[in-house]
């Protein structure tokens, strides 16, 4: 658990397909010891075994519920204690919820906001504090292009991600010079279990492509990465479209 010369990765949202793809992608280059935190023990165990088969060191796992804010401090502290620290934290907690905006099931809408913003944001705070405590490390925050400018159809998901995205950027500025780095990843539509059944948006991508772009960005100095990269320029335009026009876009 100590004296480990590979990369120790904490994946929060331990059964996230994008998160796991990032861990696998790093493990294709160097030794990785994964630590998976998530809600569903059986799913985490399956993910851990799969990671070990693809070459990772023995994975540790622990249960945490993003909505149970009071449990976050202990879960994150335990993870850092058990692992002896982490070089990388990947924050991949999120639910999609229904996509009807104002007409969404109110309970489900509230859950999206609780998990994707309050829960994920609280976990981000605890992780950043722990990284600052060890004086180094990077946290990757999985945001979304929806955070840049939510639409009627994804207003709730987009707003929650926008909150998380803004929190991550603000905290990133606060950690500048502390040895801790925050990388915000904004994928477009990713074909995963979460989006199964939805019609893919233009420029749809895969977990592996998100992982590839994330690992490339980790090697550089960027604070944000868009996947695919073209979306940065698309949204540079979309962000400034007048609302009556944006509203009518077939997105």
């Amino acid at each position: 658990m100590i004296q480990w010369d590979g990369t120790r990765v904490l994946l929060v949202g331990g059964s996230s397909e994008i998160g796991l793809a990032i861990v696998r992608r790093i493990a294709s280059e160097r030794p990785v010891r994964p630590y998976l935190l998530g809600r569903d023990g059986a799913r985490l165990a399956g993910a851990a075994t799969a990671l070990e088969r693809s070459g990772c060191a023995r994975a540790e796992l622990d249960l945490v519920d993003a909505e149970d804010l009071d449990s976050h401090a202990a879960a994150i502290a335990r993870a850092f204690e058990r692992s002896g620290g982490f070089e990388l934290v990947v924050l991949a907690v999120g639910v999609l919820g229904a996509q009807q905006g104002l007409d969404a099931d109110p309970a489900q809408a509230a859950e999206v906001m609780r998990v994707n913003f309050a829960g994920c944001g609280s976990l981000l705070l605890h992780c950043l504090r722990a990284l600052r405590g060890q004086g180094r490390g990077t946290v990757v925050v999985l945001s979304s292009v929806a955070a840049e400018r939510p639409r009627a159809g994804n207003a709730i998901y987009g707003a929650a991600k926008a909150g998380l995205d803004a929190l991550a950027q603000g905290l990133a500025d606060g950690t500048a010079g502390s040895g801790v780095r925050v990388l915000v990843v904004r994928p477009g539509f990713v074909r995963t279990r979460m989006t199964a059944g939805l019609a893919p948006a233009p420029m749809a991508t895969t977990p592996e492509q998100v992982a590839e772009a994330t690992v490339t960005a980790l090697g550089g100095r960027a604070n944000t990465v868009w996947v695919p990269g073209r979306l940065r320029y698309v949204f540079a335009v979309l962000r400034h479209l007048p609302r009556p026009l944006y509203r009518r876009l077939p997105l």
Partner: protein
Amino acid sequence: MPPSEAVFSPAPAPPAGAGTIAPVRAAVSGWGGGPRAPVMLARPADADALRAALDGHRGAIARGMGRSYGDAAQLAGGLVLDTTGMRTFELDREGGTVTAQAGVTLGELLGALVPAGWVLPVVPGTQHVTVGGAIASDIHGKNHGSAGTFGSHVQALGLLTSAGEVLELAPDRGSELFAATLGGMGLTGVILWARIALRAVAGALLRVDTDRVRDLDEALAALIAPGGPHRVAWLDLLGSASGRGIVTRAEHHGAGDAYAQAGARGGATVRSRATVPERWPAGLLRASTVRAFNELRYRRAPRRDRGHVQAFGAHMFPLDSLRAWPRLYGPEGLLQYQLVVPLGAEHVLGTVIGQLRRARVPCYLAVLKDFGPANQAPLSFPLEGWTLALDLPRAAPGVGELLQRFDTLVAGANGRVYLSKDARLAPDALAAMYPRLEHWRSVRDRADPERLWRSDLGLRTGLIRDER
């Protein structure tokens, strides 16, 4: 002696098939309270159900009555195997042994054994520990100087290995795995049953000598004065004269003493008379109230008393009369720090007590006693010298840093802390305190190459180390 049932089953075992129920999500913590760990919990009724519960799990640890103070009997994110569904035992009157399943408590055993003329040779400060836990912690009693640890009286035990086999281990076969299992914190496998050598006694009564002592030096002297083998000192660390206390030395009462039979009430165990409610306000237990209580306790003790007759249970298990007493410390709970230093390192005890006072960390209960020679088990806690147990509020400011300093002091004196009480020891301190740790790890890792058996304590302290 009246004939009795060969097999006792003191409490209802789970109904048949109960062990095959899938583990449920639960939150558990140690006896000292504090943060709860999310786990999957199963309560198997037998070894087969236990094996079935392990299916699909990557890490598991056995748990008995949950009397370890810290995180020894839990695995956050993993499987916890509650052994209290396995609780039958059988007394061999000819051989003077009892063969008990892991989940039987020592109190349940005593309740049946003492009327039959036998007693467990070693009991800890509570009757509410299981046989499995007593072996995994290699517990000691007030009579360590003459009787050694609980493990010294285990003639054989059944261990479920990570490969799914049940091994019968015994000390006389030179088994390294047997020695690694004594005090092995459950990390060598699941203890299923054990055969324990008993001691013949006439009854549940003790003859107790008591001395009031004015300071630490007097306490140490009284602990090695002539008298009964069950020796312990209670110290008042909050009073004006720090280190004053009460020392008792007790021995089993001989047979046929009518005065003793008539003169003492109670038996081999204790009934709880009150329960601390779940939401006890943290502020009620504070230095001023405990100081007043200690003053009363000190004044009420006889200055010098010889041969006082007392019931075994009342003397051995005083805290068991107040159920869930750690709740007195409020939601943050307590840390118990139990150290041992070898003979000749008595100055460490004085330094620890002095630093506690200077740091203004209140110690609500301090217990001191002597230990006899260590045994062969690599992780067994006792070694010849002095052991001091301190109950401290976890929320006390500065307690973490103070205990880290104590770790350095204790390790520097070739002492160690007791893992069954621990909730905060760091890996480097563990390695400094347990010189045979590497040997234990190699025996353990051979028995469990996949490292199925793991616990929060094991991961935190580095007892369990995952290599690539």
